[in-house]
């Protein structure tokens, strides 16, 4: 992070599935505190890249440096504990055993509590005190995303958009240095997208670096400091939004000639 101010540096990342190159020698870095957008057509390898970075599906080749430390080969939970948190393209909330909205957010504190069996059974007072503290924090986060009234509801009772916000609150509960968001605005209506944009700016102001995969170009153009374009698993272009909009290769492969989103004042 100190070095060049880059929190995340991806170099030469390649991922093959049965000989198919889903990612082909992708390299880029993210400055600490930035919002970087990852765009490209469907099947370009965006989610594959997020999974490679977060360890859910490690890359075949290449390195992923988080604050200068190579995290390739670490388990997903270890990478998460280093300060990388994420949301999922297809919502993945915890719903078994009547887990509530609040329970989902509270799980985000797991990596800081690392509860042991001994402590859980024999140090009840310590656990209860911890629980009060993190519940307070979880309620604050639910308030931030506007779900404090639904704290005791079940995730399945929330609207689609609210489930996405709940995933965001759960990710923030981990106190991440870096947030990976996989199409967080898909399925949201225009008003919700606007609210979501404001929310992301608030998160950015807290110093959290964001790597966002998103198809909503209006959102991307509004918030991104920097954009990477993937196409067929390769990096097609990288640069600030204005340069990406003007890039003929990007227009050809993804944005289309009639692109209006890029007309949004930057």
């Amino acid at each position: 992070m100190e070095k060049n101010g880059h929190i995340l540096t991806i170099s030469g990342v390649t991922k093959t599935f049965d000989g198919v190159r889903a990612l082909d020698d992708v390299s880029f870095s993210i400055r600490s505190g930035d919002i970087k957008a990852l765009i490209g057509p469907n099947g370009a390898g965006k989610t594959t890249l997020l999974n490679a970075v977060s360890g859910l599906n490690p890359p075949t080749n290449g390195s992923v440096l988080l604050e200068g430390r190579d995290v390739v080969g670490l388990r997903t939970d270890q990478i998460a504990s280093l300060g990388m948190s994420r949301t999922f393209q297809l919502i993945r909330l915890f719903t078994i055993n009547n887990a509530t909205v609040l329970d989902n957010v509270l799980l985000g504190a797991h990596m800081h509590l690392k509860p042991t069996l001994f402590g859980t059974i024999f140090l009840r007072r310590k656990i209860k005190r911890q629980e009060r503290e993190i519940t307070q924090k979880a309620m604050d986060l639910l308030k931030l995303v506007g779900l404090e009234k639904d704290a005791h509801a079940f995730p399945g009772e929330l609207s689609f958009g609210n489930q996405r916000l709940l995933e965001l609150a759960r990710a923030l509960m981990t106190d991440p240095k870096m947030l990976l968001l996989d199409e967080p605005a898909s399925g949201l209506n225009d008003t919700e997208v606007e609210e979501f944009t404001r929310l992301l700016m608030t998160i950015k102001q807290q110093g959290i670096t964001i790597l966002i995969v998103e198809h909503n170009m209006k959102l991307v153009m509004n918030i991104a400091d920097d954009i990477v374009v993937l196409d067929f698993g390769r990096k097609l272009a990288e640069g600030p939004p204005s340069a990406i909009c003007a890039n003929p290769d990007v227009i050809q492969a993804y944005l289309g000639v009639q692109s209006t989103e890029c007309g949004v004042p930057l």
Partner: protein
Amino acid sequence: MNTLKRYWWLILLAAIAVYPVIGKPSPYRSGLLIFAGIYIILAVGLDLLMGYTGQISVGHAAFFAVGAYTSGILTAKYGFSPSAAMGVGVVFSATLAFLTGRPVLALKEYYLAMATLAFNEIVVTLIIGFEGLTGGASGLRDIPPFTIFGFSLLNHLHYYYFVWTVVVLVIASALAVVRSPFGRALIAIHSDEQAARSFGVNCAKYKTRAYMLAAVYASIAGSLFAHYMGFIAPDDFGILTSINLLVMLFLGGIGTIFGPALGALFLKLLPEITYQFQDYELLINGIILIVVLVFFPRGLFGIFTALRNKIVPRMGK
């Protein structure tokens, strides 16, 4: 009224405590309740593993056997005190669960079911094979009754109170586990292992811990069983016992702690009501099981909570 809703189990506890005083049960009756208590301990442990962590075990009786035989062998053949033997059994079971947990729990669904089934079968085969130590297929005899601080629990009622004290401690500790950050991690693993990992949960470790705790409970139940019976045989710990435990879980309401406890109590006391049907006893038992499972998928505890919510006005969620 909310107090009643929160502390209803105190009534149950009081009932357990005063029953011998008021009911003056025969040794046979108190024996039934002792068995029920032992099975509650087993079922609650299995519920932690299956109902909360989502890891099926079709071989939970293996740890029941380990506890019973460790206690039996150490007291009958090596002169250990029963409480020391129980302690050794607990350590041994926990170690065995720790060593087998990672490879076994890396499997999923049917494969996990097969592996745990095989584990049960291996343990029983070893018991039969090491005849010199375990008495083999004809069983291990002359296991002394339980003693604490030199006080022998030969009397049925004393043992009844002892076993039910352990039951209360087991349920209390299981509830402490599930209503805690630890329990939340288990539920997360049950819901979505990959997502749980993404939030820092070391799934292999937590699954193994749940397995170890379930094994410890089962081992304690095994020791309690061995010292009560005085004689144990491999038949008590076979796959049929494991399957019976699964029935208790689903009958009572899996993933609720109280449900499996209720299921164990019900299934152990049911023959008391159905024995009068003589030849039709098994048939009636089967029908009752099917009716509960078909019409009350949340089990006996589901019926109980529904009734409780009817009687006690609903409090705000």
